């Protein structure tokens, strides 16, 4: 007798659509590969196939409404693609659902990225832009997961940002932990405003009722005002059960991105400004760069080495 095998069957019936469809047609054949005796197999005869299909569909829908909060713009873009919503539903399978709940958004996001690559967008450029947005959302999901895992393992406390001293320009700087950055075609907030008609809580339902129109997607993704989105995850509520993560975001001009290559723990802002000055940067630009570095330090996205 194997109760564990019965549990496995029940889980697979809920999240493996191929098995479920087979079960609805021929229960005995569908369960033949599981190590169940006759009585254990008989326990599944009580399942109404139509009810099982309904349950699985509602369940996937609820899981997606939750995951949609981590990938709002990417879900919206998917809804505008042919069969995009179906692909999202198909990703709620045993691979996604056996991942630990704390890691599920990143597991799902990585699989969504693979799917994105297979879709036909209006142009390669549009696809690359959509992918960049997904990478940005995946970066936030990954940051959130990593931070939660560290808190659960080590009991990290909520940190208080350090106050910058007078000598902050001279000190070598480096990228802080739990920071991700991506170049996106427009301000993230602006993209969300245009592509997500309702709040994150209601978005999945909204997209099912009214998918994003192809014309809005095309128009929005090809409107270029590129930004460097820098995001830092932080613990907004510490807990040994379910720490909450929130994000601080800064959006800088795309041109700031190459300066990140110098942020390696060996040079300070003053030195970077000096190098820029030597290659002809104007005072106004230098002030803008200094101000951006200060903002990144204030937000804890950069720290002193």
């Amino acid at each position: 007798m194997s109760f564990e095998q019965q549990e496995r069957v029940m889980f697979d019936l809920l999240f493996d659509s191929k098995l479920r469809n087979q079960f609805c047609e021929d229960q005995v054949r569908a369960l033949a590969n599981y190590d169940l005796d006759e009585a254990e197999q008989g326990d599944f005869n009580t399942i109404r196939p139509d009810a099982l299909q309904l349950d699985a569909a509602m369940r996937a829908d609820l899981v997606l409404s939750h995951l949609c909060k981590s990938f709002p713009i990417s879900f919206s873009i998917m809804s505008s693609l042919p069969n995009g919503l179906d692909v999202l539903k198909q990703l709620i399978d045993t691979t996604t659902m056996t991942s630990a709940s704390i890691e599920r958004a990143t597991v799902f996001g990585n699989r969504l990225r693979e799917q994105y690559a297979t879709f036909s967008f209006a142009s390669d450029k549009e696809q690359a832009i959509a992918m960049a947005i997904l990478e940005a959302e995946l970066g936030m999901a990954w940051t959130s997961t990593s931070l939660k895992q560290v808190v659960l393992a080590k009991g990290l406390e909520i940190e208080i940002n350090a106050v910058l001293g007078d000598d902050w320009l001279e000190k070598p700087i480096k990228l802080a932990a739990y920071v991700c950055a991506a170049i996106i075609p427009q301000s993230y907030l602006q993209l969300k405003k245009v592509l997500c008609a309702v709040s994150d809580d209601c978005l999945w339902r909204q997209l099912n009722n009214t998918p994003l129109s192809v014309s809005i997607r095309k128009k929005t993704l090809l409107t270029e005002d590129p930004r460097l989105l820098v995001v830092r995850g932080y613990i907004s509520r510490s807990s040994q059960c379910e720490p909450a993560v929130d994000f601080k975001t800064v959006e800088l001009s795309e041109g700031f991105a190459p300066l990140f290559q110098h942020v390696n723990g060996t040079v300070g802002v003053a030195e970077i400004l000096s190098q820029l000055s030597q290659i002809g940067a104007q005072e106004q630009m230098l002030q803008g760069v200094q101000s951006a570095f200060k903002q990144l330090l204030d937000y804890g996205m950069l720290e002193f080495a």
Partner: protein
Amino acid sequence: MVLMSDHIKALPTLGVGASLSLSSKPDPVSLVQTEGGPSFVEYAGLVDVDAIIEEVERVRAAGAPVLYHPSHINFCGSYANSKTWLEATAQHIEAVDSAWFAQDVAYCFWETGAAYSTSLGYFVPPIFNRASLEKAIERVKEVQDTVAVTVAIEPPPLTFITGTMPLFSFFGELAERTDSAILLDMGHLVSYEMASGKKVHDELAQLPCERVVEVHIAGGRLKEVADGPIYVDAHECTILEQTWQMFEAMLPALPNVKAVCYECEGVAESSVLPTLKRIRRIVRELSASEALVASLDGVV
């Protein structure tokens, strides 16, 4: 039949209350302060009490006791509950002074890692067989070892049924062997009847009725599928006629009910009070619980 323990008899009678979201409409404090409002408030909240204590204190300050009714405990199956989450649950219950601790007997998480039932979409129901019952006993005792108050087990909503053990045989034996109280949700019983084709009244002899301390009534939807309707829990919807009928049929069989809870998260405030009034009328007319009926003296 195992005799009911003193700890269940001694539970306080809370009357007719409402299950509400602490931070959204309808506002629990406003309802509690209204004539004919709920006499207690039940809530599903985060496991960490720090996250909700201010809102709970507002409700208690308004004069209503609270019951914590979460959705993160595995009360069945092979996957044990996290000690950390159990301890946080125990702290939560103590901090808000929940008179008992009730939750659906279902899977909230699978294999590794504690989580809310939303991680699986919603509750995955237990398999109704003897091996599953033994695992459920393990799980309930695991909770009882950490939680200081009486545990009440609740049959979950059932879209489909796995296993042949009748619902009340499973829950009757689970309650007696763990010395637990029972919470019966009328909509969940309707869901069982629709998913199984059986009638709960035919199984009533298997249910230790005196252990039923709490009754839930809530809105739902019927989904028409190939082989007949399926009940779907939907608290924001109106209470279905089948659910009212179940309520009226069950109340006379339950002599020790301490609390009837209208689960009305997301329901318009204007329709909560009339529904509470209807529930009280039915309780007065049909409940076998003298203490519950007495608790309604002077209430509209």
